[in-house]
């Protein structure tokens, strides 16, 4: 159960615990939190929705991609759905590797891939309205109907 969609608040330590290993010298975590101000606009709260079974599969796929690229990596990801208030945790990504550079790079790869291929959406609620947020307001159409594999590890 290293890849989960959670309906309740995420316990960061429990995600970290899944990647502890004797051959790790480094564990990185990314914790995505709900920010109040974005481009001068005040967010009240967010609703996250997911296509759950596919989202779990895609998180697993990201973990597999990481283990193929970074030797000895262990990965755990939990993404929350439902209503989240300011400073609440939306996602926790934990990656352990023998050496620290890999732990940073693999972790960053994970969040970028989540934003590309994992079917999760957020609806922002402001004082004056609400909107489902697309990939930067849908400036990225998918001409082939599916996302292209991109190499994020330059």
């Amino acid at each position: 159960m290293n890849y989960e969609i959670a309906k309740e608040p995420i316990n960061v330590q429990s995600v970290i615990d899944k990647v502890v290993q004797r051959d790790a010298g480094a564990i990185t975590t990314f914790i995505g939190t709900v920010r109040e101000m974005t481009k001068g606009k005040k967010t009240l709260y967010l609703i996250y929705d997911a296509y759950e079974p596919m989202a779990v599969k895609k998180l697993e796929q990201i973990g597999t991609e990481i283990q193929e690229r970074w030797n000895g990596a262990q990965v755990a990801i939990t993404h929350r759905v439902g209503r989240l208030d300011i400073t609440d945790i939306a996602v926790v990504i934990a990656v352990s590797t023998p050496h620290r550079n890999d732990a940073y790079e693999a972790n960053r790869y994970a969040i970028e891939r989540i934003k590309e291929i994992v079917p999760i959406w957020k609806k922002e609620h402001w004082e004056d309205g609400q909107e489902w947020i697309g990939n930067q307001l849908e400036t990225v159409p998918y001409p082939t109907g599916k996302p292209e594999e991109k190499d994020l590890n330059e």
Partner: protein
Amino acid sequence: MNKVLFFAHLRDEAGHESVEIEAAGKTVAELKQIIAEKYGVQKLDTSMTAINEEFSSNDEVINEGDTVAFIPPVSGG
């Protein structure tokens, strides 16, 4: 029959979480056109499509019993 799932703003537009439709033998592109007309859903062209929880291209053919999901640009994380 095929189950078709909508998410995020597509769900709001369609007014349904899912619908049952006969789509076997049709391509994803053809199904998108049918759905756009029947349910008044815009922006299917900027959506991804998943068949049985795997991303599919527009020219993939849908089989009997497949579950099709229209997936707007994602915004998790």
